[in-house]
């Protein structure tokens, strides 16, 4: 090959590179063979918390029971090793599953249209704010507290570039004519179930769009945001795709009402037919293609609706398989089981002397726990007893969050973990 290409060695192929900078000294760890690599990373994985340790963290990532077929199907190398389906004739696997995903997201959110998924819930919410600003030509957005701080932070990151002001508000009434949209999280950051309809009305009264950031799993039980008046719905699909994996890869759900279709960011898959009947006869067959690409960066360049290109297709597929494997009844049952288990656990905590579970209204899978010691102290005491406490939210402005930890219990939290928590709290409660 070298000969055919007309060079003596590989280095000669890089003659165009400036000699002064060519072949710098680079310090990288030694090469490992496969068995050595596996040994090293098994050691690393073991340096994380024991997977079996009772853990009550939620606050944006929740332990779910994922049907085993989700991992089985998404590990098919035909799905894993393909790229963005630019050639529909040999990419129907990716395209048709993306269409399934769009359909599932629309059903869950009550929206008319969905894209094939963005990076994560926070960036999807930021894109929603940008869309709202474009659609309303307004220069500010309102985020309703309590909202996930990570989501708020990402919105700020994106908004700064676009020159959009971000206001944190505590009630829908604070939405004004300046606001392109009002953004509310469902359930909110402290786990409370939000009544969306009045918020939608407030937003619309101010001429703003209403954006809901919803947990798609909770939507198995809770009223669909579309039904409550939302114009755009975002959400995080990771928890229904697989394990939390320290937060990623994730997939950001993004769905909207029909009138915003051509303003949407990201890839969209559409249904169509073959141009000709197949060579061996019959009618033209149904197929799926990337469509409405006139919105996208590779055609529109600086006038695109977003710069997004590679997103999270494989995670979107796993999400789709999980939701469809559960099906209409399974999803509802799982959501109710989650609700029941969480409330049963909360009741047991509330019954312990020295502990309170301050409520802010109906809630789904997360509850606040306040002990007789500061939150951080309580968390440390639990850690000593081999239990990972819920997130410390004592710095939140909401009165119920004072000195409190935010515990998550889901349909997938083992009974033994709840028992371990109760035992540890009993011990501590007495102590404190």
């Amino acid at each position, binding site marked *: 090959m070298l000969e055919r290409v007309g060079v003596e060695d590989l280095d000669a192929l890089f003659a165009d590179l400036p000699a002064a900078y060519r072949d710098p000294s680079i310090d990288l760890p030694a090469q490992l063979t496969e068995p050595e690599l596996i040994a090293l990373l098994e050691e690393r994985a073991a340096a994380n918390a024991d997977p079996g340790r009772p853990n009550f963290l939620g606050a944006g990532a929740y332990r779910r029971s994922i049907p085993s077929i989700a991992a089985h199907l998404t590990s098919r190398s035909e799905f894993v090793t393909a790229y963005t389906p630019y050639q529909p004739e040999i990419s129907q696997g990716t395209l048709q599953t993306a269409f399934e995903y769009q359909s599932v997201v629309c059903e869950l959110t009550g929206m008319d249209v969905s894209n094939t998924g963005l990076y994560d819930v926070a960036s999807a919410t930021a894109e929603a704010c940008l869309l709202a600003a474009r659609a309303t030509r307004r220069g500010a957005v309102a985020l309703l507290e309590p909202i996930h701080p990570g989501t708020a932070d990402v919105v700020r990151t994106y908004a700064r570039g676009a020159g959009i002001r971000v206001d944190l508000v505590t009630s829908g009434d604070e939405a004004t004519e300046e606001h392109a949209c009002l953004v509310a999280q469902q359930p909110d950051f402290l786990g409370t179930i939000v009544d969306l309809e009045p918020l939608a009305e407030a937003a619309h009264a101010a001429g703003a769009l209403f954006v809901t950031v919803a947990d798609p799993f909770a939507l198995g039980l809770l*009223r669909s945001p579309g039904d409550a008046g939302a114009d755009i719905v975002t959400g995080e699909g990771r928890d229904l795709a697989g394990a939390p994996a320290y937060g990623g890869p994730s997939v950001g759900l993004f769905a909207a009402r029909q009138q915003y279709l051509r303003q949407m960011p990201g890839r969209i898959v559409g249904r169509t037919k073959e141009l000709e009947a197949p060579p061996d006869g019959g009618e033209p067959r*149904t197929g799926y293609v990337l469509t409405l690409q006139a919105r996208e960066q590779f055609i529109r360049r600086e006038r695109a609706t977003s710069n997004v290109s590679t997103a999270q297709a494989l995670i979107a597929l796993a999400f789709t398989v999980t939701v469809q494997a559960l099906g209409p009844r399974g999803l509802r049952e799982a959501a109710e089981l989650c609700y029941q288990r969480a409330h049963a656990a909360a009741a047991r905590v509330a019954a312990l002397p020295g502990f309170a579970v301050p409520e802010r209204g109906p809630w789904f899978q997360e509850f606040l726990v306040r002990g007789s010691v500061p939150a951080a102290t309580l968390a440390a005491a639990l850690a000593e007893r081999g239990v990972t406490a819920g997130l410390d939210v004592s710095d939140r402005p909401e009165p119920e969050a004072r000195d409190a930890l935010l515990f998550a219990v889901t349909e997938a939290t083992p009974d033994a973990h709840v028992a371990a928590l109760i035992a540890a709290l009993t011990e501590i409660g007495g102590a404190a």
Partner: protein
Amino acid sequence: MSAHRPRSEDFGAQLSFDRSTAGRRAVDVPSWDGEQTPLPDAHLLRDAVRLPELSQGGLVRYYTALSALNYGIDSGTYPLGSCTMKYNPKVDDLVASLPGFATAHPQAAEEDAQGTLRTLLELRRGLAEITGLPAVSLAPAAGAHGELAGVLMITRALEDRGELETRRRILVPDSAHGTNPATAAMAGFTVTQIPTGPDGSLDRATIERELDETVAAMMVTVPNTLGLWENGIEEVADLIHEAGAYLYGDGANLNAIMGRVRYGDLGFDVVHLNLHKSFSTPHGGGGPGAGPVCCSEELAPYLPTPVLEEDAAGLVRLTAPERSIGRLQQFHGNIGVLIRAYAYMRALGLAGLRAVSGQAVLNANYLRVLMHGHYDLPYDRPVLHEVVFSGTRQRREYGVRTYDIAKRLIDHGFHPPTVYFPLIVEEALMLEPTETEPPEAIEALAEALIAIAGESAEDPETLHGAPWTAPLGRLDEATAARRPVLRWPDGKDGG
């Protein structure tokens, strides 16, 4: 023949929703035998979601059949230019899914995630070495995300210099990937296009003319999207810095130069990488990816949150740079992808990475010489990771478009190249074989393209109708866009 194929079914017409039968289930949910807590008020609840009801076997058969309609790297050669479709070592998937990694909670105390954090820290250090840029954030989820980070960092730096009001322009080559101008616009800048010269490098005169105190930065892809080295980029860097602007590097094509030259040494201030390309994490049908952003000490304070630091006690911590542009994701990035990339880096080491870039470039040039003369080659010189041919001759003389050539390549058993990009090459055929394709595969690919060049003269109709042997024939994309059907059930989307 048709008698031979009794059932020509329209598989795509039957979605899971259409295959649904009331009462079927793929999995059962445990029942709750504890005390019942009343549900919230009815007005907060929904009625059932419309989802398909299939048995587990039915669902598995449906998605298994769908997978068979895909062409992936494990199916064959996938010379999709600019996308670096290389073989993905299976061990990387294995290690990334180890339970300790998989179950780590993103809100966990750093002490409880040291295995993951240590791995990310070493990846970060490796990327700093490879790019010659000392500071790195692994937060971006893909290349475009990394671009946004980089441009926003520049925004913040200019703000601190009090020049943000005046520096409103970003220079972008006419050969740039669409994400570059789109990113500049997202960050609020206007885009000035820089033409490519006849040698395939940027037109220096234009750059010098455009460079002034209204320029915030220039985004340059190195090697560029023609697969060529950007001549004198190190001098351009000086010009840009003299003008008080920043040089942004699109590092999506790192595969060509890994271990051979470093962005930092060339004078780049900030660059993003596409680990799902250069570091071989699977493309997953369109993600997940990872687009780390690497920068100079000057821009380090602006990196997106989080960045990784090792503290005195040897504990790896997630920190926020003091002037950080903020977060790009709710949590820490596409961790699973980053672990795969780390495994890839460790399996190769420096020698391996240099072997990768060397072989990748050799393969692209081998393909170039094999195809030479059969298609126009607008920039006729040795290339790096990819080569961009043009189908103009075929179109002019036989009315065959690059689109037809690409579709016909499917019949020959290959995934088509990237087409009609970069925009500066008419009827572009952008071919990137990558280092993992063996010589015989590159020869077969060249033979197929040469055969197609022949077919375009003798039998253009066969090309216009191609593909003939794919799961589906050409699809009606026009109608798809004009009357969009974007979800089940049809029409509900009102399109």
